[in-house]
């Protein structure tokens, strides 16, 4: 027998000092090192397999042998771990351990247009690929201890600040010099969709962030190619030098994962995504990204819904997510998505094990949970040979436990990191829980010990005699003696207990008197004994004898671990009110005997049938036959059928900002990159007959961003909602918004501040775009052989100028926010001189003053029916505008720019009849065919014509009447709004809420911690909203 050590804290620092000793001076005698340590007789958890009597041989902080039977070298320190389990320590690859907090530099009241960072770095403060975690790392023992106690041995740390965040380092949670703690200095590069501490104006929106990222990727390549001829840019240089490392993208939202993946695809990179734990809501799309996910397990606490009125602030999404979040890990397993677990976002350390067990109660297995904390994170970052397992050559990071890792009863004894022992709980813990007979002086009490093994709790039960009283509080008297009947009652009081190895201290208060006991535990016999002070201050002997084992809690634990998925509600698309359980199947639809507004030469047809087949309009005729038995037949008698409403100017269904207001031109940004399928307004507008919308950038700058044209396909993904071969549009804007007239006294810096300046912004940008286009044309016309020659470097890809060049090349159309005639006229002159046509003036409230010029130029107009007087530039707006433009032969539409108005665009169109005497058919075209023409989608939608998309509305009454309601709204042949389905949905929402509220109340009554009422709301946008709603 060699040395058996119980407390091994001795060799704590030896390992690391050993590494340093040849390089650095030592104060004192050099340490003896290179000792072997053997951990024997433990159950080793080796990932896929378990070795019941395993031995680990460790030297210099690494495993040198792992196995069952082995010969140990001479001079080995042996640690006998009989009956104990060994697991690899956990790895958190989404940590900011040891990183400084970057505080925003305070700026003045005005906008900060340029970077305030000193040095030869890039132009945007939120892009800092040059940042190196290793260079800024300082060990933080307090935080390290917290993580070790959860079971972590290694973290991948980075500074969670900025859009491009630089490199992360792999760091152990050992003590000692930082030199030894960083086991790999440059492991991964990090990206996010948040600006962090940068106060620079650009980017101010999610789409701006996406554009900035894309441009940075292009610039990195360009900089590398042309480094010798460009001024030094340490940021771009570092970006390109680190680009081949694993790339971790903080997406923090299921749709953001898809958005980040699109960026990755563009550049042939695969990101690892940091998610939000909501991946289950779009599992198949997330699987299709091919990326691994780092998921938090900060499951929401139940809301305190005890006030039913206040409970209304909690959305169905919040409630359902509360219920479904613990299922996310097992659903990721089932969905075949590789994932690692992070502690990021956890409110307190004790939630870690609690939430792992919640996830396991939903079906996550121990081995999957363990993998997500060890082998998977190691593999994701390419550190599978360093950490995450019990394998030869790996760092000796491991946990010693009393049993299966995640069992509630299991005690984590120690966390070994690089061969150093960190004691978490004493290995001499005794399970004291149970019932005891407690004898103090003369009296008998019962002592109940409960809680956990590591942290027991105690209470004292005793009998006392009182007079009996009845329900109304009167004394119950004995019939014979007429004296009160005595009854014995049992009472329970809390006691304080502290245990250290064999020593115990117990104190409690009985009937206003204090007892304070100290003693020794004889663990074999279950007897405690010692001395204590009685209420009168005298000392007396006491003893406690175990009478029963602890049990009731154990059964409870098993109950919660029982896997029960039937209790959770369905995952709807989207996960919110009116979401669909599954996407509908495409069926054919026959609407019979209706009044049909064709918007074609046939005009309005009475008593006709219309057949929708395979998502297209198949036929319109007097009596049409069913296609098949599954055809849905709608009785159209007394009903009106029109083409679906098209909103030329909408801002719904957009994530985090419709304005990139940081610069005068933001042609590089695109609403198409931030379409949000989870907006209730999609459903509400379907209920108003809207089937297509152009989601426009706002009006914060003369050259805004690119549009998305979508179908309101409620339940589908953002990508599926977008038009195939979507016509390309960009928003321009004129007037008060772009010159920041109403932005307060401080926004007087950004060019332009006058209408005069606006014109010059256009000329400047178009001239630059022209030059850019020429440069690329020249390059593209080079012979292939020349292109391949290393001397010919392609020009810089500039996403902004490229977009503007598309306008010049007539590949992209403009929809321009406009009010007064002078500037409208100006922009048409700019377009004329640049050789393109201004496609649409939107708002165009003074269009009636230049209708002849618009007609001559070929511009269309998309206007409000009757808005005016909200700004100085709309004082001459008139509600007759649409009529007059229409009469002058300008293609004219009526739009909403408002989530509410879009629900009744038919009414807005009808105002054209009131103001200016438009014909009813023309009025309907204002919101159907004409916007389709303006959007260049009239070959697909906008009228009821055979072959066009089956985008159809069935109205209860004359569609231009205030009394008309859509009864069915059909998009691509799918009935996505139906008045009867809507009724069912309402019942479903009510019952689902009732169920979830009951469940939350039950959780609260069961003692679970709750969170206060907190309503989360998506902002409703119009083009004047300038903020990014993100975090």
């Amino acid at each position: 027998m060699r040395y058996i050590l119980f407390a091994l804290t001795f060799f704590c620092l030896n390992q690391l000092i050993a590494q340093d000793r040849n390089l650095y001076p030592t104060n004192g005698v050099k340490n003896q090192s290179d000792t072997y340590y053997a951990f024997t007789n433990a159950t080793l958890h080796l990932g896929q397999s378990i070795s019941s009597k395993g031995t680990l041989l460790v030297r210099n902080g690494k495993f040198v042998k792992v196995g069952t039977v082995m010969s140990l070298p001479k001079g080995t320190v042996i640690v006998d771990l009989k009956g104990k389990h060994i697991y690899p320590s956990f790895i958190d690859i989404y940590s900011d351990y040891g990183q400084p907090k970057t505080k925003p530099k305070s700026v003045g009241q005005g906008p900060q247009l340029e970077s305030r960072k000193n040095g030869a770095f890039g132009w945007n403060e939120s892009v800092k690929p040059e940042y190196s975690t290793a260079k800024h790392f300082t060990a933080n023992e307090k935080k390290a201890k917290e993580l070790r106690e959860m079971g972590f041995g290694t973290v991948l740390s980075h500074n969670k600040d900025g859009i491009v965040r630089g490199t992360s380092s792999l760091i152990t949670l050992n003590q000692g010099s930082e030199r030894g703690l960083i086991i790999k200095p440059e492991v991964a590069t990090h990206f996010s969709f948040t600006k962090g501490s940068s106060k620079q104006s650009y980017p101010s929106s999610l789409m701006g962030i996406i554009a900035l990222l894309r441009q940075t990727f292009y610039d990195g390549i360009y900089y590398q190619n042309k480094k010798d001829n460009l001024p030094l840019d340490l940021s771009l240089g570092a970006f390109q030098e680190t680009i081949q490392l694993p790339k971790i993208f903080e997406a923090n939202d299921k749709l953001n994962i898809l958005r980040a993946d699109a960026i990755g695809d563009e550049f042939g990179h695969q990101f690892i995504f940091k998610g939000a734990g909501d991946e289950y809501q779009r599992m198949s799309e997330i699987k299709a990204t091919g990326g691994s996910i780092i998921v938090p397990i900060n499951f929401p606490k139940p809301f305190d819904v005890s006030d039913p009125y206040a409970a209304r602030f909690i959305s169905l999404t919040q409630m359902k997510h509360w219920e479904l979040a613990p299922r996310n890990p097992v659903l990721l397993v089932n969905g075949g998505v590789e994932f690692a677990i992070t502690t990021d976002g956890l409110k307190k350390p004790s939630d870690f094990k609690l939430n792992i067990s919640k996830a396991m109660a939903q079906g996550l297995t121990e081995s999957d949970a363990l993998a997500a904390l060890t082998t998977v994170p190691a593999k994701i970052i390419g550190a599978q040979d360093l950490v995450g397992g019990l394998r030869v050559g790996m760092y000796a990071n491991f946990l010693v436990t009393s049993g299966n890792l995640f069992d509630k009863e299991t005690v984590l004894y120690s966390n070994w990191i690089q061969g150093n022992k960190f004691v978490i709980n004493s290995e001499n813990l005794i399970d004291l829980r149970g019932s005891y007979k407690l004898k103090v002086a003369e009296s008998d009490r019962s002592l109940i010990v409960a809680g956990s093994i590591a942290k027991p709790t105690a209470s004292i039960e005793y009998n006392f005699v009182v007079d009996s009283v009845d329900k109304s509080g009167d004394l119950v008297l004995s019939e014979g003696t007429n004296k009160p009947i005595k009854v014995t009652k049992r009472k329970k009081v809390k006691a304080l207990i502290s245990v250290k190895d064999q020593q115990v201290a117990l104190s409690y208060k009985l009937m206003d008197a204090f007892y304070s006991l100290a003693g020794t535990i004889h663990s074999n016999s279950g007897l405690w004994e010692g001395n204590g002070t009685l209420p009168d201050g005298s000392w007396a002997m006491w003893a406690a004898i175990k009478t029963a084992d602890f049990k009731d809690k154990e059964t409870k634990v098993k109950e919660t671990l029982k896997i029960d998925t039937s209790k959770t509600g369905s995952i709807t698309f989207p996960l919110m009110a009116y979401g669909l359980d599954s996407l509908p199947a495409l069926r054919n639809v026959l609407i019979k005997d209706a009044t049909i507004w064709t918007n074609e030469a046939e005009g309005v047809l009475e008593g006709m049938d219309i057949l929708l087949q395979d998502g297209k309009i198949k036929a319109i005729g007097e009596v049409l036959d069913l296609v098949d038995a599954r055809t849905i037949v709608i009785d159209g008698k007394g009903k009106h059928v029109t083409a679906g409403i098209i909103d030329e100017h909408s801002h719904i269904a957009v994530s985090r900002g419709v304005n990139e207001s940081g610069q005068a031109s933001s042609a590089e940004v695109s609403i198409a990159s931030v379409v949000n399928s989870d907006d209730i307004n999609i459903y509400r507008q379907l209920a108003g007959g809207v089937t297509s919308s152009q989601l426009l950038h706002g009006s914060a700058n003369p050259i805004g961003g690119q549009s998305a044209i979508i179908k309101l396909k409620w339940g589908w993904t953002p990508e599926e909602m977008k038009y195939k071969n979507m016509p390309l549009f960009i928003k321009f804007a004129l007037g008060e918004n772009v010159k920041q007239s109403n932005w307060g006294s401080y926004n007087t810096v950004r060019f332009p501040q006058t209408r005069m300046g606006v014109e010059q912004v256009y000329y400047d940008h178009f001239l630059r775009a022209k030059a850019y286009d020429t440069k690329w044309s020249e390059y593209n016309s080079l012979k292939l052989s020349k292109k391949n020659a290393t001397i010919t470097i392609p020009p810089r890809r500039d996403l902004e100028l490229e977009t503007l060049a598309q306008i010049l090349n007539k590949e992209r159309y403009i929809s321009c926010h406009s009010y007064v005639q002078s500037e409208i006229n100006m922009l048409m002159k700019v377009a004329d001189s640049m050789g393109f046509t201004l496609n649409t003036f939107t708002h165009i409230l003074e269009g009636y003053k230049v209708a002849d010029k618009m007609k001559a130029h070929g511009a269309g107009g998309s206007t409000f029916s009757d808005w005016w007087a909200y700004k100085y530039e709309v004082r001459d707006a008139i509600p007759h505008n649409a009529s007059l433009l229409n009469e002058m032969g300008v293609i004219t539409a009526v739009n909403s720019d408002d989530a509410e108005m879009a629900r009744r665009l038919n009414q807005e169109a009808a105002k054209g009849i009131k103001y200016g005497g438009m014909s009813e058919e023309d009025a309907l075209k204002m919101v159907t065919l004409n916007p389709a023409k303006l959007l260049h989608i009239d070959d697909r939608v906008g009228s009821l014509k055979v072959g066009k998309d089956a985008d159809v509305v069935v109205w209860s009454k004359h569609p231009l009447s205030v009394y008309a309601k859509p009864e069915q709204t059909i998009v691509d042949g799918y009935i996505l709004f139906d008045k009867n389905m809507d009724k069912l949905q309402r019942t479903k929402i009510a019952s689902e809420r009732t169920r979830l509220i009951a469940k939350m109340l039950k959780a609260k009554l069961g003692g679970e911690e709750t969170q206060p009422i907190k309503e989360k709301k998506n902002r409703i946008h119009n083009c004047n909203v300038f903020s990014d709603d993100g975090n």
Partner: protein
Amino acid sequence: MYFPMMVIRKKSIVAVGFVLLVSISALAQVQAPGELTEMRILLLNGKAHIGNGDTINKSAIAIHKGKITMVKNALLITIKENEYDTIIDISGQHVYPGFIAPNSTLGLQEIGAVRATRDQQEVGTMNPHVRSIIAFNTDSRVTATVKTNGVLLGQICPRGGRISGTSSVVHFDGWNWEDAVYKMDDAIHINWPRMYSYDWKNRSRTKSKSYDKSVQDLNAFMQVAQAYNDVKFHDDKDLRYEGMRTVFNGVKSVFVHTDFVKEIQDVIAFKKMFNLNRLVLVGGYDSYLVAENLKNNNIAVVLRRVHSLPMYAEEDIDLPYKLPKILQDAGVKFCLNNAGDMEQMGTRNLPFYAGTAVAYGLSYEEAVSSITSNAAEILGISNRVGTLEEGKDATIIVSKGDALDMRTNQLTQAFVQGRFMRLTNHQDDLYNKYKMKYGLAK
């Protein structure tokens, strides 16, 4: 061209010719209010929507010296043509009492983005003494576009603070605020504290820490005001408390603005605590949840804009559209209003809100009441306007078609206190100007 449907009989030619002349010459001018006429006018054969729920399909409505002198079924009486200077045949058309816009800021704000034109919000928390009437701009170009859709009266309200100030009820065809006023200083307006407040930084709404304190402050103010006004005359006057003087004797109404149900319940308690006979709830989005309680406590509701979005995604998507029907069924007295975004210019759509309420269940005549008689009762002017009844002011509109439907709302006549109101505004002038430019004018 201004009275195309008018059939002129007998000796009315001269008088009406005068009106026409004024109208045409007004094209090139700023619109002026109509002039009071001594004429005896008869509106004949129009469908009358009385405002109290009744209708007369073929009505005979007589107007003289600013008052309605007769409302009868034309089929049941003999018309003596010589009793009238003008008989206007409005067969196939609709007659309504002038529509009323409560809780309005018309005339207080002209262009929202231009600070110099904003006059609705004073500095301070307790401003009952601040009076909207003296800032009411009768020459607002916005109001001119509202009245031409049939909205002839409004309650002009200050905004902001805890007690915003004192409103007055006016008509929209006056030379100055003195002759526009219908009811001077009709009510004070209280913005009830918010129990849950929105935090823009975190994009979330959480329980407000200051709610209780704010309610206590309001109660304390009310108590002091009450005590102050127990004394008839003060040498040292406090204008704020003077502004409260008629609140406690029930002359001035108290309009309390709030939407959330728990706040509404506190408002009901507040009414009881201070024994406020005339307390009206404004906004009242959640009023349907406590309808019985509101009814029992005789609290009427100036209901949140009908054309608005539900507050919560979970709610019925058409909840704001059908709230009028729900309140009607519950027996709560209510009227419609247009406060919110673009509230001044949007007031011209008030009749269409009533139309939407019809589409979502309200009966047509109930919808008419919600912008006429109900509003008049809630504002305390029902003895003079709100219905087409003998003895009431001749504040009337005639529409070519159904005035609650934008498709058919076309005013052919409008009277404010018996004066012919002009039916055009500067927007029509601009329209005509450019029609002429393009050669489209007929």
